[in-house]
């Protein structure tokens, strides 16, 4: 009985290892994220008033990376909490409509930097530029 169970476990582990190897070989990541994931984290950090969380979502090569503080973000996101009402993506650019606490609409375009990670960490994204009404508010 024990021998049978050991055999089953061993076979299952082999299958798991094989699937993981195939996924990694195919370029799939185990922990990578999408642009939508990153923007979710960004708006969550804004809603939670978490300055480090916001900064973690930004591309460090943006000129305003250090100067854009919580006060700066609160000024644009002044009707918290926000949810994502609609999201569309073309390449590394996302058009997002945020909905404020009273249902107000805040449309923003996010240009994202794609960060190539390792096989295990996968691709991540950071915010390189944000435009509102065709004007750049952050870059």
């Amino acid at each position: 009985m024990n021998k049978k169970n050991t055999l089953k476990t061993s076979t299952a582990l082999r299958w798991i290892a094989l699937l993981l190897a195939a996924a990694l070989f195919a370029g799939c990541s185990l922990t990578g994220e999408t642009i939508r994931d990153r923007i979710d984290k960004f708006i969550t950090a804004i809603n939670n008033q978490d300055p480090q969380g916001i900064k973690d979502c930004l591309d460090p090569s943006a000129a305003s990376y250090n100067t854009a503080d919580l006060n700066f973000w609160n000024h644009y996101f002044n009707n918290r909490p926000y949810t994502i009402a609609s999201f569309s993506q073309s390449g590394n650019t996302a058009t997002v409509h945020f909905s404020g606490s009273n249902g107000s609409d805040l449309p923003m375009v996010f240009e994202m930097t794609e960060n190539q990670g390792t096989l295990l960490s996968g691709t991540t994204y950071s915010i390189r530029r944000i435009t509102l009404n065709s004007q750049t508010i952050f870059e």
Partner: protein
Amino acid sequence: MKRSILIWITILFIIPVGLLLAQNTTVTYIEGDPRIKNNRGTIESLDYGAQLATGESVITGKKDLVELDQGNSATIRIKPNTVFTIREIEQGGQKEQVLSTITGSVSMRFNRLAGKEPKIGTVSTIAGIRGTEVTIFAGPDGSSLFIVESGLVSVSAAGQTVELGAQEAVEVPAGGPPGEKFSVIGRELDFSTWSQGKAEELLADPLSSLDRSAALLAQFKAGLEEWVGKYEKARVESEAAAEQMKSMTDKEAQNKYRDEVWFPLALQTGNAILNYRYYTLSALSLRRFVLGPLYMQVRTRNILHQDGSYQEFMNRYQEIIKDFQTTFEPYTNSTDY
């Protein structure tokens, strides 16, 4: 607006080396064990082939040497005991990359054929380059020395400009205008000697060094106050518009009001915040890289013998720090440290 941006850059705690369009900056040579301070504030070993992002710093120890390449545009040699940072500024409505030396010595060779003319600077200075090879020394007292090997360099500080040709140099004190230019033909200037001389001058007259830093902080303070004033005005109008927008029930009218009234005011406010933060972070750099080390050196040197001038220095230092805390700290946050 453009003029004021130029003035900030001139007085800011930046050492712009290459105002090049955003380019990849790659580590191509390493000696010793240099470090990189990344944008999350952690310090790690610098690896060969690493790419430096804006906001990151290379820190070399006394036996370290690092060479960076920006494609075929520039080669940057970071010498021992140097802190070197990449920043980005807005000038003439365009974002440009700035390579900034906080302290130490950096030599640069720019390829004239690569396009845009770069600019260089020091703690209190900015300079435009029309040439190829230049070395910058940034002293422990916030002063700087520009040595041009070939080409032309235009050095500006505290509203005055000096044009340097090949084999010419100029020294710029922290917070002051450039001194008289001098020829370096037949003279060998190495950073360790110059820096040692500066350190000795600084320790010989630490009060004057404090005063120079205080003068620079006063310039930052003036910039900060100007933009905080603009911010307060814009904020009141923007917040009133935001409240008006929130009270609107017709979505179409609300969106129209958002685009035509609220957003232009919000943009003004946001830009004012970025501007006053720029002065704040520059003052913070000055405190960290000039005032802090100066205080430590004076304190260490006088640990056994604390006379009246030492006390005077400490009182003046405390005064400056108190002013810093009152003026700039309210505009800093935990992620700045």
